[in-house]
Each structure stands twice: as C-alpha cells, then as structure tokens.
C-alpha cells in the first residue's frame, strides 16, 4: 500500500499533536480470516495546519476520523496524543457533524454549554464562555432559540460554536458543509477560514473530512486522498497557495485537476482484492472487482453528454457544469470505466466505441450492449450467471451469493455489493429477482 507520508515538508515542525502509527481496522470472519477495512496507516497532525481528508463515499474516511478521535477503536496500531498512547481516553478534540447533531430539546446556548457542563464548569462561568463563542460565530441574539427554529447554516454555526467552546487542540469536521446548500456552505467556509486565519479561535489544527475537491483545495494546507478497499493513503498533497484562495486561479484549477487525475486513475489497481481459493465445486478463482454503487440509469445520460461534447471531456469541468460533486459523479464514471464504455486519461473522460454505441442505441439495444459488457467485464455478474445456469431450476437464493461476497467484504459492504449486482443484473436481463422470497432466477433468452 502506498503510504506516501510527507516527511519532507514537515522537518521544521517539532511535534505532531496527534499521530497514528500503523493504525488499521479489520473485521474478523467466522472462518478465521479477516476483512481489512483500513490498511495500516501512518498519519500525523501538526499544529498550524488544516488537513483535508478526501475520498469517495464508503472509502472509510469517516471511520479513519473516528479512530483518530478515539470514538471508534482500532484493531491494530495506535493513536498517539503528544507522544502518549491514547487508550480509551479522549484527547481534547471536538467534532463538527454533518448532521449537526444538536440536541433539539436544548436551546442554542444550552447546546453550547453542555460540553462545558460535562467538564464540571460552574453555571456562571460556562454561560460567559458560551456567549463569547456564540458571538464569535455570529449567533448573537439566538441564545434562547431552539435548533429547529434555525436554518441549516445557523444550525451548523451552533455546531461549530459547541465544538469550539471546549477550546479543542484539534477540531475535527465530518463533512461539515455537505448538508447545506451551495451558497450557505460557501459562507460558512469563508467565516471559518477567517476565524482560523485571524487566530480568533484557540484551535491548533483542523481536520476536515470531505468529498468535495474544491472545498479541500480552498481550505486545506494539506490534502490526503484516501484510496479504497481497503482504505489507504493514496496521495498526499501539500498546498502552499496563499489565502484567500481564488478557486478560478490557475494554481487552484491545476491542483483540482491533479486530484481528479489521482482519483480517476489509480496508480495501482486498488480495486482488486487478492483472490482466495474456493471449496470444491465452487466457481473458479477470479478476481473480485468491487462494484461502484450506481444504478445503470445514470450511465446513458453521462455517455450522451460525452457524445455531445465530441467524445472527450474534462471531468472537473463536467462536474462543475452538472453541479455534481465527486460523491455523485465518480461512481457513475467508475461504472462506465468498468464496463469499458469510457476510459480516463489526465483527468479527462474519453468515450470508447462500445460507449458510443450504447449512448446512441434505443432502450432494447442498450440493454443488449449492457448485458454483453457486464458479462465480459464484471466477474461477479459472470459468476452469478454461471452459478444460476448450473442449477437445474435456474434459481438460487440471494443468501448463496451473499455468502460468497462475505468472504471478501464486510457484512454491510457485501449487502451493498449484492444490491448493486442485482440492480445491474436485472437491468441487463441476466436474471430476475423476487424481493419477497429473495430468489434469483436466470432469464431465459
């Protein structure tokens, strides 16, 4: 696994606040083997930095963050807090949650006071401190309002105030702006950066989990790109563009492009998991390809746009035009790449002849092309087809396939994998699926 740690840029900084050494997570399986969710990772958070952790959904970035904060126990390696191992004790950190996680029955000020209360600070003192921080984030006059009376942006301000009031050394943020509309998110980002740059908050480092490349580029001093299955550090960018950053500037666009390149063109074939031997009578060894979680419906739309643009398009520009973020665009791109309807090159998407045919075809022909591409390029669907064909009644229960997948993925992921495979297989008319009985039946041509 690539652990491209940036030791070079950090010689000057003395001591990391939080350091993860060989931090990993895996789930044990019934047969004694284990599923690696997060590969051993080395990561250090130094004072004075904003770190962005970037990755597609489901790649394990939230889990990694929770392990760093102590919320989720690691299965290997450890987290050090100023050089001391953190075992079951919580370092002085805060989290700003995507869903705000405010207590709806407490007023704004009670929400902000609650963490101080937990530290045993007497009422008068904590009231003073809460008021001060509410003032700083622009919530003056809303002390006695309940969260449900506030707009999303105001709620997240309360979330930030609550996080800052305990004066955390590191402020963790879990996709803090992704539940907000674009403009509100932009406003909050700007305000947060202002507080940080003007040293109005005592926080010594920030760690932002995000799937928004631009957000990372505008805010962070260091961008860590997380690869999938198992999660590992895929790339580590140091950003030295001075603030305030203009996202339209050449430097920013170049950085965004290179991040796109990394994300769409993995250096190694990360998507493959070393094959295992199956028992006698089981399907032959094959590489397990992780399916991106998309429905086939969006595929044609993407390819049609590509055809309109002459077959080649810059992904960054495309995402901006469609106002889709990485989260929603990447899985569809991955799907098209997997089916060889598309290839990526230097952050551009280029349509293939198969993709062109698919985009131009009518509904029935599309299904036929999809079926051919799916059986040729998706080992899981091929396996499923073969297994169904091998049965005299052409029927198998979904549990059978889930058991197969369970050897490679965590329980939740294998359920999602199977769901996706069923979606694709139904669309391709490879098999029928009855959700009541959970039975898959081969579709006879």
């Amino acid at each position, binding site marked *: 696994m690539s652990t491209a740690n940036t030791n070079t840029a950090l010689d000057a900084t003395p001591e990391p606040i939080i350091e993860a050494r060989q931090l990993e997570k895996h789930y044990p399986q019934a047969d004694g083997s284990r599923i690696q969710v997060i590969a051993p990772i080395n990561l250090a958070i130094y004072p004075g930095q904003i770190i962005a952790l970037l990755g597609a959904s489901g790649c394990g970035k939230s889990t990694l963050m*929770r392990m760093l*904060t102590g*919320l989720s126990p690691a299965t290997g390696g450890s987290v050090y807090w100023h050089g001391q191992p953190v*075992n*079951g*004790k*919580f370092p002085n*950190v*805060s*989290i700003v*949650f*995507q*869903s*705000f*996680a405010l*207590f*709806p*029955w*407490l007023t704004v000020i009670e929400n902000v006071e*609650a*963490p101080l*209360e*937990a*530290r*045993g600070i*007497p*009422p008068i003192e904590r009231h003073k401190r809460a008021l001060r921080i509410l003032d700083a984030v622009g919530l003056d*006059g*809303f*002390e*006695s*309002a*309940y*969260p*449900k*009376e*506030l*707009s999303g*942006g*105001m*709620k997240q301000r309360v979330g930030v105030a*609550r996080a800052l009031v*305990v004066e955390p050394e590191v402020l963790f943020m879990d996709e803090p702006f992704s539940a907000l509309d674009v*403009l*509100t998110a*932009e*406003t909050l*980002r*700007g*305000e947060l*950066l*202002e507080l940080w740059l003007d040293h109005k908050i005592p926080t010594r480092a920030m760690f932002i989990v995000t799937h928004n490349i631009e957000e990372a580029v505008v805010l962070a001093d260091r961008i860590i790109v997380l690869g999938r299955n198992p999660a590992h550090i895929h790339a580590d960018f140091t950003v030295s563009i001075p603030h*305030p950053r*203009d*996202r*339209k500037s050449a430097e920013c666009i170049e950085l965004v492009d290179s991040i796109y390149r990394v994300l769409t063109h993995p250096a190694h074939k990360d998507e493959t998991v070393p094959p295992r031997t199956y028992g006698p009578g089981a399907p032959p060894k094959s590489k397990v390809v992780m399916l991106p979680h998309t429905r086939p419906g969006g595929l044609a739309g993407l390819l049609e746009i590509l055809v309109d643009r002459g077959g080649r398009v810059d992904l960054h520009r495309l995402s901006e035009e469609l106002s889709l973020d990485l989260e929603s665009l990447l899985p569809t791109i991955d799907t098209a790449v997997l089916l060889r309807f598309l290839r990526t090159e230097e952050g551009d998407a280029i349509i293939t002849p198969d993709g062109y045919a698919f985009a131009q075809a009518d509904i029935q022909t599309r299904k036929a092309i999809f079926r051919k591409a799916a059986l040729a390029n998706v080992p899981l669907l091929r396996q499923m087809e073969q297994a169904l064909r091998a049965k005299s009644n052409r029927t198998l229960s979904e549990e059978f396939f889930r058991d197969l997948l369970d050897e490679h993925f965590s329980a939740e992921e294998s359920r999602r994998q199977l769901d996706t495979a069923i979606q694709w297989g139904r669309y391709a008319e490879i098999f029928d699926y009855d959700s*009541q009985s959970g039975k898959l039946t081969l579709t006879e041509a």
Partner: protein
Amino acid sequence: MNAPALRAAEPAPLPPPAKQPAGSRSSWGFLIDIVVFLFVFAAIFGLYAIGRAWLAPARPEAQISQDPRDLPLYAFYSLVRMAVAYALSLVLAVAYGYIAASSRRAEMILIPLLDILQSIPILSFLPAIMLAMVALFPHSQFGIELGSILLIFTGQTWNIAFSFYSSLKNVPRDLREAAIIYRFSRWQRFAELDLPFSTIGLVWNSMVSVAGGWFSLMACEMFVLGNRDFRLPGLGSFLQTAASNGNTRAILWGVGAMIALIVLLDQLIWRPVIVWADKFKFEQVKSSAAAHSTLFHVLGRASVVHRLYQRLIRPFFNWLTITLTQRAFRAAETFGARKPGRARTWIGFLLVAAILVGLGFAVFHAARELSDLHREDYIELLRSAALTFLRVNSALLLGALWTVPAGVAIGFHPRLAPFAQSVVQTAASVPATALFPILLLFLLRLRGGLEIAAMLLMLLGTQWYILFNVIAGATAIPTDLKEAAQVFRFGSWDRWRYLILPGIFPYLVTGMVTASGGAWNASIFAEYFHFQGRIVSTAGLGSTISGASDTGRFDQLLAATLIMATIVVLINRFLWRRLYRLASSRFKLEA
C-alpha cells in the same frame, strides 16, 4: 470570490420567540397565583388524609359505602393509589429499559422476559403480592394499600419499559457520538440525551398504562383471596359493591364519577403534558401543527410556577449535574480504561447466583403445585383456553369489522376528523369495566347474555386501539395516491383492494397487536363477575384465573397463567411479528 459578499444569501432564520409582555403576566398572574396556592393547600390536606388512612390499623374488609356523597373521598383514594402506582411504574420501567439497553447480556434476558410479563394478567400476580404485603405489614392498612398499588403497577409498567428501551436503542448515532466526544458524564447522557429523546414515547405509553389502570381498578380494590376478603375504599370498590348488590342508582353514580375524574385528568394532566412534550420531538424543522393546551399556557404565566422553577428546580438540577459530572470527570482524568473492580465482579456474580437460586426454588415449587393437578384438570384448562381464544379473536374480528370502515371514513374526511377524534377519544377513555355492570343489567335477562357481555367487554376495551390506528393510517395515505385511484376510476372494491387496505395495513397491524394483548387481559374481567349477590361466569381461561384466585386454588391459577402467557407469547411471535415484518417491508409508504 470572497465570503462576506455572499453572507446575505443565507436565509434569515426565524426571530426568537417573543416574550410575554410584562403587563399581562402581572394582572393575570395574580389570580393564577392564588389558584396555585389553593392547590398547594389542598395537596397538603390530601397528604394528611392519606397518611391518616394508610397508617391506620389494618382493616381489610372496609365497609364500602353506597352513598354518592362519599364518592369524592373515594375518588380521591383511588386517584392517590393510581398516582403512586404510576410513579412506581415509571421509575421501574425507566430502570428496566435503561439496564436492558445498556448491557447486551441483560438485554438477552430482559427483553423476552418483558414479552412474558406483559402477557400475564394482573390477577395472576394477586395472591403473591397480597400475601407478601400483608405478611410484611400485618398490623397496618399500609400493607393492604401497598398490595393494591403493586397490583395496579403490574399492569402498567411493562409497556412503558419497552417504550423506553426501544427509544434508547433508536437514539441517533451522531447524538451519541457528540455526547461521547464532549465527554458527557453518565448522568448527563441520561438527563440530556436518553431521557429527552424518550419523552414522547414515555408520555404516550403512560397514557395507555394509566387507562389500563382504570380498566383494572375494580379488581385491584376489592377481591377475595381464598377465605380472606379484601376491600379498600375507592371508586373501584364502590362500583364493584354496587354491582354485587344490584344497586343501579349507585352504579350510575359511580360510573359518572369515574368518567368525570378521567375527563378532568385528561384536561388537567395529559393535555398539558402532551403540549410540553412537543419540545422533545426529534425534528430538525418546526412542524406547523403544534398541540395546544390552555392550562399549559396559563401555568407558564403563573409567576409562582416560574419562580419555583428559577429558584428551586433549576439550581437543584444544576447542582446535581455539576456534582455528578465533576466526580465523573475526575475519575476520567485519573486515566486508564476503567476496568470493573474486583468487588463489582463479585457483586455481579453473587447477584446472578442469587437470582439462579431463587429461580430454581420457584421452579421447584411451581412444579410441585402443578403436579397436584390431574390430567382431567389440564384437559379442562385447555378446553377453556380454546373457548377464550375463540372469544378473544371473535371480539377482535368484530372490532376490526366496524372500526376499519369507520376509521377510514373519519380519516378520509379531514373536516370530520377533529370532531370525530375528540368524540372517540372521550369514549375510549371510559374504562369498559365500569360500564360492565350496566351492560349486565340488560344482557343477563337474555339467553347467553353473559357470553355476549363478555365479548362486548373485550370489544369495548380494545376496539379503540384499532380505531385510532386506522384513522392515523387513513390520514397518512398520500393524496396523490387517492387522486390516482380517482383518475383511473377504481371501483369501490378496487379502491379498497389496491389503495385503502394496503395503505392502512401497517397501522391496522399495530392496532390489532395492542388490541389482542388487551383482549386476553380483559378476559379475566369479562368471564367472571360478582353481580347481584352471586357469581356470573362463563367457561374460559379468564374465568379460571379469576375463580382460582377467588377460591385460593394456586395450582390452578399457576397452570392457567402459564397457559395464557404461552398462548399470548406464541401468537405474538408467530402471527403478529410476521405481519409486522410484512407491514414494514412491503406495505411501508415511503416518500
């Protein structure tokens, strides 16, 4: 692109709620303060009266008056019993639910146990509780009172416990994590997260529980145990005595008093509590239709209440939180993952051992009791079980037959709904057992009158659960689906088949589950009754339990209880739970 330019784009939040103008508080407030003070005086007097009655020498067979003028005092006695029983239920239920939700090992035992406890009718607890209490306080009325209270309690606590447990299990993960990362102490987690999140469930289940308490009040205030007669002055015993004597005038007075009391409680307690609980609704956006209670607003304005809160209650909770959290924080500072001390492990071990020994002892004695019964007895028991089974399910079917069309009609007519709902709510709050003597007056003249009366009682006691849920279900059917049915010109049969029945199905199942449990419990009142100086009874498991408790046949009582609990648990497992799963997978209306 700089941020400040965009600041105006953020939608303006609602202004904070306007404060009451000071003038209106003082002019109104004075009057309200006086009323509040009067209530305090009344409460002190009441405490004195209760103390005198409870600490008096034991007087198990109180002469129950038939004079309507005694009704206020009797109603007061019953009310206090209900209040204490409910308070006890709430505390125990919260403890039970908390333990079940916080320990996986405890959960494995406590949750199935809850299912069983819920299915045991209160009369089956009667001998054990009464004998224990009388033995504990042989010379004081307190023992008998406590027995009656515990009896009410056994019918109330389980569903509250279950509600609290499932609320705790559903606390959103983010909130839990926020509480951990901000180092909430155990107490703070309980007071600021667990309890508020569960409040709405607790309130609704408390209402159901208290209604159940009124339903069984007659049995809890007056009963025979072998050769001992227990009578406690109260509304329930008043009604029971009136029924035994066939005193129609007294029955009517008693029923009237009970209805008045229940309506009063609804207005003075439950409405304000529901309005207050609204603040605990877990929602991100304020809903438009908020509940309303005049009393709640009036009380909110009373300066006495306000001051009491500011000066006494709030500082107390502040102090409590601070002391508890400071201690917890110091413990956390002293570091290291807390390992359970050796003493704690030992205590746990001893506790489990004690429980096992107790259990073994109980099973041994129960087996001995059961071995006293002969094969014919068991055949007889099974026959009565079959009869009660038939009766319960016919009552359910009858209930569904009229409540489904009625509920759908109410739910589909938004203008009819508020009016109909308040009528239905009032009707539902009248405990069916109180009406039972009146029913018997008429029905006993007919052939098979008790049979009809028994079914009617079950019906009266349980149909409301179905009706409420059907109304809720019919209201929840989206308008566009209704319009689609209209556009495609569905005939009325197709409308029922494709739109209404699937739409209300999950709600109907919820209602039927509650109704089924209620009907089994109601069988002990419906099949056996002291009326006009004799016992009217019809064969069934319920009458077996009542009769066995009356005559002190513990072996029979135990066997019948076991059979009933088994039947109810089995029906829940194999019928309702499956329908529930079907309802939540296939018939769930998702946006």
